[in-house]
C-alpha cells in the first residue's frame, strides 16, 4: 500500500489532475503494486505471458464492464449482462442448429450463421430495450429491473436448452469467430475486439458529446434535464449499448465452446460491477472511467490468479476478492478526502 501514498502525494495544491484522473492513476498504481506484490510472493508469476493472460483470460468480463461502467456513470445499474450472455449464446446456437435432429435439443431453426448471429443479437437488444422501458418509462429502480431481466434472460435460455445445453448439429463455421487467432500470435479475435471496444469507449467517454452528457446525467439528473438533455433517450441508448456488448460476448463465447450453455455468464454481472467499483466508478453516478474499470479488472485478475499460483484452496479467492474490494474502496475514499481537504 506504500505505493499508493507515494502516487497520491506529489500533486499538492496545483490541481493539474482532475479527481477522476487522480483516482484512475491511483487504481492503476494499485494494480501495478498488487502485481509486483504477487510477483514477489508467487513463484513464476512475473512473466510476460502471465501478464498477457491476465488480460486475455478476462476479455469477456472487461467487455461487459464497458457498458456497465457507462451505465453506472449515468447513475444506473445493469445487472442483466450475465443473463444476456447466456441468452444470446443459446439463441445463436438454436437459430443456427440444422433442422431435423434426433431430439429436441439437437434440432434448431437451421438459419445461416450470419442471420442466426444477427437474430441472437436482436434477442440481446430486446432485453436491453426491456431494461430501458422499465427504468426510463416506468421509473422503477434500475437495480430491481435489471435483476428481473437478468432472470428473465437466463430463464429463456434455460427453457430453450431445457436446463442444460445445445451443442450438436452445428455447422463448422460456428466455431470460427470465437477461436480465430490474429496477427500470427495466440491472441484471439474476442480479445482484439475487447481492445478495440475499450479504445472506442475511451474516445466516446473523453472526447465526444455523448460521453460527456453521460457524466452530466449521472452527476445531476435534474440540472441535465433543465439544460435540455433528453435523459430518457440517452439512458435508453446506454442500455441498448450495454446489452449489445453482452450479446456479442455471449455469441463469441458460445462460438468458442461450440455450445449454447444456459448457465454461462453466471455471476458475470457481479464481476462486471465489482471491477467497475474497484476502478473507482462511483455507485451514485457521475464519476468514473473506463480506463479505471480496466485496471480494476486487472486487480481482480491478479488476486484470482495469485490464489491459484499460491496453491491455496480456490475457496480463498472469495475472501481475497472481498479484501481487495474493501481496500480499494477505502483507499479511494481516503485518498479523495485527503486530496480535497
Amino acid at each position, binding site marked *: 500500500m506504500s505505493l499508493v501514498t507515494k502516487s497520491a502525494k506529489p500533486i499538492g495544491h496545483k490541481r493539474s489532475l482532475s479527481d477522476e484522473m487522480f483516482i484512475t492513476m491511483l487504481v492503476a498504481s494499485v494494480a501495478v503494486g498488487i502485481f509486483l506484490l504477487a510477483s514477489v510472493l508467487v513463484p513464476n508469476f512475473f512473466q510476460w505471458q502471465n501478464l498477457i493472460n491476465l488480460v486475455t483470460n478476462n476479455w469477456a468480463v472487461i467487455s461487459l464492464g464497458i457498458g456497465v461502467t457507462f451505465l453506472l456513470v449515468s447513475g444506473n445499474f445493469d445487472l442483466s449482462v450475465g443473463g444476456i450472455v447466456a441468452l444470446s449464446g443459446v439463441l445463436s446456437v438454436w437459430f443456427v442448429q440444422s433442422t431435423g435432429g434426433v431430439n429436441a435439443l439437437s434440432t434448431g431453426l437451421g438459419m445461416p450463421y450470419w442471420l442466426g448471429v444477427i437474430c441472437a443479437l436482436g434477442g440481446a437488444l430486446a432485453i436491453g430495450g426491456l431494461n430501458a422501458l*422499465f427504468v426510463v418509462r*416506468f*421509473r*422503477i*429502480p434500475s*437495480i*430491481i*429491473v435489471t*435483476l*428481473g*431481466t*437478468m*432472470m*428473465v*434472460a*437466463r*430463464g*429463456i435460455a*434455460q*427453457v430453450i*436448452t*431445457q*436446463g442444460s445445453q445445445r451443442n450438436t448439429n452445428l455447422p463448422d463455421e460456428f466455431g470460427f469467430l470465437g477461436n480465430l487467432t490474429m496477427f500470427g500470435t495466440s491472441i484471439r479475435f474476442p480479445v482484439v475486439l475487447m481492445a478495440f471496444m475499450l479504445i472506442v469507449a475511451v474516445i466516446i467517454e473523453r472526447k465526444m458529446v455523448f460521453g460527456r452528457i453521460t457524466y452530466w446525467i449521472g452527476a445531476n439528473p435534474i440540472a441535465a434535464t433543465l439544460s435540455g438533455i433528453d435523459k430518457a433517450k440517452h439512458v435508453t441508448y446506454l442500455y441498448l449499448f450495454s446489452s449489445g456488448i453482452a450479446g456479442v460476448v455471449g455469441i463469441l463465447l458460445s462460438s468458442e465452446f461450440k455450445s449454447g450453455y*444456459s448457465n454461462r455468464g453466471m455471476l458475470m454481472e*457481479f464481476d462486471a*460491477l*465489482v471491477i467497475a*467499483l474497484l476502478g473507482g466508478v462511483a*455507485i*451514485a453516478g457521475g464519476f468514473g472511467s473506463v480506463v479505471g474499470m480496466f485496471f480494476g479488472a486487472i486487480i481482480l485478475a491478479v488476486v484470482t490468479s495469485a490464489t491459484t499460483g499460491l496453491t491455496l*484452496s480456490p*475457496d*480463498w*479467492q*472469495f*475472501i*481475497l*476478492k*472481498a*479484501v481487495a*474490494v*474493501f481496500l480499494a*474502496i*477505502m483507499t479511494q*475514499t481516503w485518498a479523495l478526502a485527503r486530496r480535497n481537504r
Partner: protein
Amino acid sequence: MAQFLRNYYIYLVLLVIIVILSLTNLDRFDLFARGNFLYDRNIINILRVSAPLLTLAGAFTLLMVSGYIDLSVGSTMGLSAVIYAMLAINGVPFLAAFGLTMVCGALLGAFNGLLVVKLKITPVIATLITLSLFKGIALLLVQDGVSAIKSIGDIKMPTWFNSYGREGVLMGLPMAFWVAVAVTIILVVAQNRTLLGKYAAATGGNPIAAKLSGIQTGRVVFVLYIIVGVTAALAGIARSSFMSLGDPLSGDGMELNAILIVLIGGTAFSGGEGRVFRSFIGALIIMVLTVGMLTLVPAYFQTLVIGAALLAAAASNHLISRKAAE
C-alpha cells in the same frame, strides 16, 4: 376501489395462485386428495420448505424500510448453516448450538453494520464485500474434498439434528416454521408498536429530517443489520436442519428471493414504506409459486417465471402507488 386494491391485492394474488394451482389437476385428482395442490401433506411440505425465507422476510423488510439493503443474507445463512452443523456434529447439545449460531449471526450482522455505519461504505458495496467474505469463510470451514458438513463414516450427525426443520410439533408443522411465525409476530409488533419501527420508517423516508429531529439513524441501522444477521442465522439453522447437512452454499440466491418477496409485499425500494406482514405473504406467494409450478411445468421454467414475477411485481407496485398518489 383503488384504495382497497392497494391494501389487499397481495392477499388476492396469493388466493388466485392457490385457486389456479388447486384447479389445474382436478381432472386427475380430487380436491384435497393426494396429488392435488390442497392435499394436506403437500401444504405442510411447502410450509416446511418455506421456513428459511419466512424467517428472513420480516427483518429484511425493516432494513429496506430504513433505506438500506443487505446482499449478504445468503452468505450469512450458508455460514450459519455450516457453523450450526459443525457444532452439532462435534457433540454440542441442541440449545447451545442454536444459541451460539444466533450469536454468530448477530456478529456477522454487526460486521455489516460496522462497514455501512462506521466506515460509511455504500450498503450495496459493503454487503457485496461481506457476501464474498462470508461465503469464503464458510467454504474454508468445510474441509477439502467434501461439499458440506455431514455424516461421514463413524462421525454421525446427532439424531435430533433434523427434527427442528422436519418433525411436526403443532398442526404437523415443525419448530422451524413456528419460529418463523414467532419472529414475524415480534417484528410486526416492533414495527407497529415500538420506536424501532417508527425510527426505521423515518430514517428511510427522509434521513436528514430524521437526524435533525434527534434520531440516531446510525444506531437504528446498526441494530437492524444485527436483527437481519440473527434472522439469517435462524434461516440457516432451519435450512441446515431440513437438509441434515451444513452446506456452505445453502443460502445462495437468498438475497434475490428476499428482495423479490419484499417488493411483492409492496415495500418501496427507496425506503420509508413497507410492512413486515406483507413480506411474509410475499414469501408465501413465491414459495407456493415455485413449489406448485413443479406440478405443471418442468423445473427449468423456474428462473423465467420468478424473473417475470419480479418485473410484474415491480411494475404493478409502481402503477398502484402512482394511482394512489393521483
